[in-house]
């Protein structure tokens, strides 16, 4: 059985969203819908990217968008597995990594912040 692209696990105090597979334009709509659903639980959301095999600009944007949603809803978002080599390389190449978050990052929780 093929692994599910997006698997939502509702725990007591967190909603886990594990993404397994590509985060490219072909999956963008499906992933967006899944992420929205996760936020509707009202609990903190953790996006697990360890299983991501490929990412493009749409994937990176999606993470930003999810972050913005979390800021607006006042719901904590954590992203794990973004430090995987492939993913961080693309993020680096796309110029996503930064010291200061974007305009919407009023909670100072931008997922792309680095220290170097």
């Amino acid at each position, binding site marked *: 059985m093929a692994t599910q692209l997006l698997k939502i696990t509702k725990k007591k105090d967190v909603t886990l969203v594990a993404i397994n597979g590509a985060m490219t*334009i072909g999956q*963008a*709509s499906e*992933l*967006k819908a899944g*992420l*929205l659903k996760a*936020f509707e639980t009202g609990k903190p959301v953790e996006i697990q990217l360890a299983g991501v095999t490929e990412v*493009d*600009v*749409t994937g*990176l*944007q*999606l993470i*930003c*968008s*999810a972050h*913005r*949603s979390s*800021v*607006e809803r006042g719901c904590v978002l954590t992203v794990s597995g973004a430090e995987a080599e492939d993913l961080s390389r*693309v993020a680096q*190449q*796309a*110029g*996503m990594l*930064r*010291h*200061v*978050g*974007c*305009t*919407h*990052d009023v909670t100072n929780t931008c997922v792309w912040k680095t220290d170097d």
Partner: protein
Amino acid sequence: MQDNFIQAFKDEARELLADLEDALLEMEENPGDLGIVGRVFRTMHTIKGSGAMFGFDDIAAFTHNVETVYDLVRNGELAVSKELVTLSLEARDRILAMLEAAECGAEVDQGLNDRVIERFRALLPGGSAGAGSSHAPAAAPAPAPEAQEAVTYRIRFRPAPGIFSSGINPLSLIAEMQELGPCTVVAHASSIEPLESFEPEQCHLFWDIILTTSAGEDAIKDVFIFVIDDCEISITAIDDGSRQDEYKKLGQILIERGDMTAQQMEAILGRQKRFGELAVEAGVVDAETVTSALLEQRHVKEVRQERQSQGQGQDGASSIRVAAEKLDVLVNLVGELVTVQARLSMVAQELKKHAELVSVAEEVERLTNDLRDNALDIRMLPIGATFSKFKRLVRDLSSELGKEIELTTEGAETELDKTVIEKLNDPLVHVIRNSIDHGIETPEARAAKGKPRAGTIRLSAVHSGDSVLITIKDDGAGLNADAIRAKAVEHKIIQPTAELTEKEIWNLIFAPGFSTAAKVTSVSGRGVGMDVVKQAIEGLRGTIDVKSSAEGTSITLKIPLTLAIIESLLVQIGKDRFVLPLSMVDECILHSKGDIDKNHGREILMVREKLVPYVPLRRMFRIPGDAPDIQQVVICQLEGKRVGLLVDWVIGEHQTVIKSLGRMYQQVEGMSGATILGDGSVALILDVPAIMQAAEHAP
């Protein structure tokens, strides 16, 4: 002034040609590597360009024809072949010949040049390039893209939202730009909506890209050529490398980019805080925009720093060309200084009550030592340049002899004094030639022995104490002990009955006039060679060690790092003092009259249950007077043998600045030079190998 430039061109051209040779040989090994082809092309191009600039029209015209061929190779229209490499190597030699001819005002063999060019033409599709005669002066080359100065550009790249639907990936465009040069990429993510209103299949990001490249603005435009209608792109040159002052202030960058107006900036500057924070607080720009501008600032700063530290290639300030003679003069002066300093230290020791003098003398000693190390260090060169010359030698010789030989090198970065490296060249050529000619078998013979058809010669250099070990190792047939022995008997170098150890047999190959090669080839077999090698290496105060088996031969040259100043041991016999290189000394042992009687006058002594012969230097040098009751034996290690030198007493270690003996004394056996001691007197430097030889042959 012009002469200076011309000299600079010649120097540069020599380096380029050496580099070209390396590149060509590398290209032969990796014919598919377009990077190397590019390197060859660029080198040819540079030679052509600067040749034309300095009036070497013949070189420019000649190189132009070669370059034409490489342009095709670079574009994949012509394949790299062995023939092409051979021809290119020949062309490289012709360029060198033209350069040298220009230097001494000689005529070049134009016919030979034309023939090489003809053969290049034959490689071109259709057999002729129509590039005109090789005499026609090459049109002054249009400034090549790679010759341009690096310029930093600011590129704002805002793709249309629907860009993904046309199958374009902005990341690949960014990747293409990164290939042009150092690149700082900042994505602006502020227009991304929360998930509820987010259009996942549209592009919401836009980028500021700060790129430093020498490829020119057109190359950047080329990157965007297919998306130009779907994007907003602005390219601005912001730094052309001509200015080294502080880069623009943040506000200036923002204004230039059109992100804020000058009035807005003035208003903000009225308050005193970091400008970036102020700008964000004022709500004129967002933090992201400021970050992007800050990164631009940092990028340019870094590029400028890089430029300064690299000295921008040829004409920067970080390295300068100095005539070798000037360095030699410097090293000589430092040598004098070391001598005087030793004297100063001695005087200071004698006048101990002047504490201040002692401390000044110590300070001078410390500085002198640093100065000496630095001065010698300047003359240190990596041996790699010498190694790479041999690639060509191996390639040419092996194909001449119908053998397949590969040369591998190791430790090319090992540094040796420039004068030592120069003197090493010839001995190494001899040894390598010998390996190729006698050592490595023909492919058929190798196959029959179950060895790979292609032989290998390994050149390696490694530091070992104050020496460098250079090993030439081949996987050939090895030395033939019986043949060497027979030959030595035939040449009356040894008695037919002589009993020799393996090592002694191997050392026979260094005897003058010795060659076992069955026939004289153009490569070797003339009976000169190995004895020349030995002389040259001993001239460098080095030693040679030979190992051989059926799996191959390995010859190790042990060479001191420098010739100018050595660590040595100072000894005394009667009133005379002598020095011997510390690198050869194993240990010093007391030797009393009683010991001599015990051995019944035989000149040997027992050291840890091993017999060591010794040479009484007092007798050898006919120094009058009686030896003291207790003398000392300095045991030296040479070619695996231990031999003692009997002296009156050992004074201690000494920094020896080597002075050559005058021409009158060059033939004196047992001395290799002289040095001046702290008290101004002269001490002779003992030539240990010569002393041992003389003692062995003494009746």
